[in-house]
């Protein structure tokens, strides 16, 4: 076996292990996200029980005819010094009373709506983690694909 092929094989071994670890992390992060979301969903259900079925629904969400407003939660792409690749960073701006999405649902907001808001803010952190793992996995798979092509080319030559 040529030294080149040997080197490619060991890189492929490492990438395979990395991708398996990332796949496991990816599933884990999705399950954590599911847990946060289901807590939020049960708090939304409690709020519906108190305020009425249609008082917490898509009818309260802004439409394209509503006034323009900016997102409170956004992501930034930063260079991670350790991984040497871009990672998502979440920024949740502190909302003024006017900006708080809770105000779409009226003045008297049940405690469960506040709790649901906190649950979904926590979910956003899980979303950020999950997106970072997904991007890493994507890059690992692309490198693996390139390495496999290279390996094929070398094997054909030999």
């Amino acid at each position, binding site marked *: 076996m040529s030294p080149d092929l040997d080197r490619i094989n060991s890189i492929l071994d490492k990438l395979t292990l990395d991708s398996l670890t990332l796949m496991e992390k*990816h599933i884990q992060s999705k399950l954590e996200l599911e847990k946060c979301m289901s807590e939020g969903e049960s708090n939304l259900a409690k709020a519906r029980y108190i305020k009425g079925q249609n008082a917490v629904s898509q009818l309260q*969400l802004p439409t*394209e005819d509503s006034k323009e407003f900016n997102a409170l939660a*956004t992501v*930034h792409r930063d260079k991670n010094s350790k991984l040497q690749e871009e990672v998502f960073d979440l920024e*949740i701006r502190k909302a003024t009373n006017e900006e708080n999405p809770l105000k779409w649902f009226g003045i008297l907001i049940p405690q469960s709506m506040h709790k649901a808001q906190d649950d979904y803010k926590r979910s956003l952190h899980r*979303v950020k983690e999950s997106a970072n793992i997904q991007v890493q996995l994507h*890059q690992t798979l692309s490198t693996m694909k390139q390495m496999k092509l290279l390996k094929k080319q070398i094997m054909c030559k030999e």
Partner: protein
Amino acid sequence: MALHSSVKGKLISVIGDEDTCVGFLLGGVGEINKNRHSNFMVVDKNTAISEIEECFKRFLKRDDIDIILINQNVAELIRHVIDGHTQPVPAVLEIPSKDHPYDASKDSILRRARGMFNPEDMAR
């Protein structure tokens, strides 16, 4: 967390059922921009697949969106479009919903990853 207040961040968009949209919008991801375009879409049983597909493609084209959240059951309806998106950004995240728990075997990125492990390729 780094300080970002001077730079406007990129958006997280949502395509999903009522609870998913209400929840994440409560969390603060919603935005209506100056062109009156929103970054979310509520999908119900009356929503046509073509509408979902069109909305997803529109979000992919927008350069102010970095993450697209889509309920996995909705993603199943437009799987061919999702599989066609091979760029890492915007990251398309398939998320569970109230009635459909997360199923790793349906996730696009995991299916792509599993495709890399076929025995022929692994043999030296």
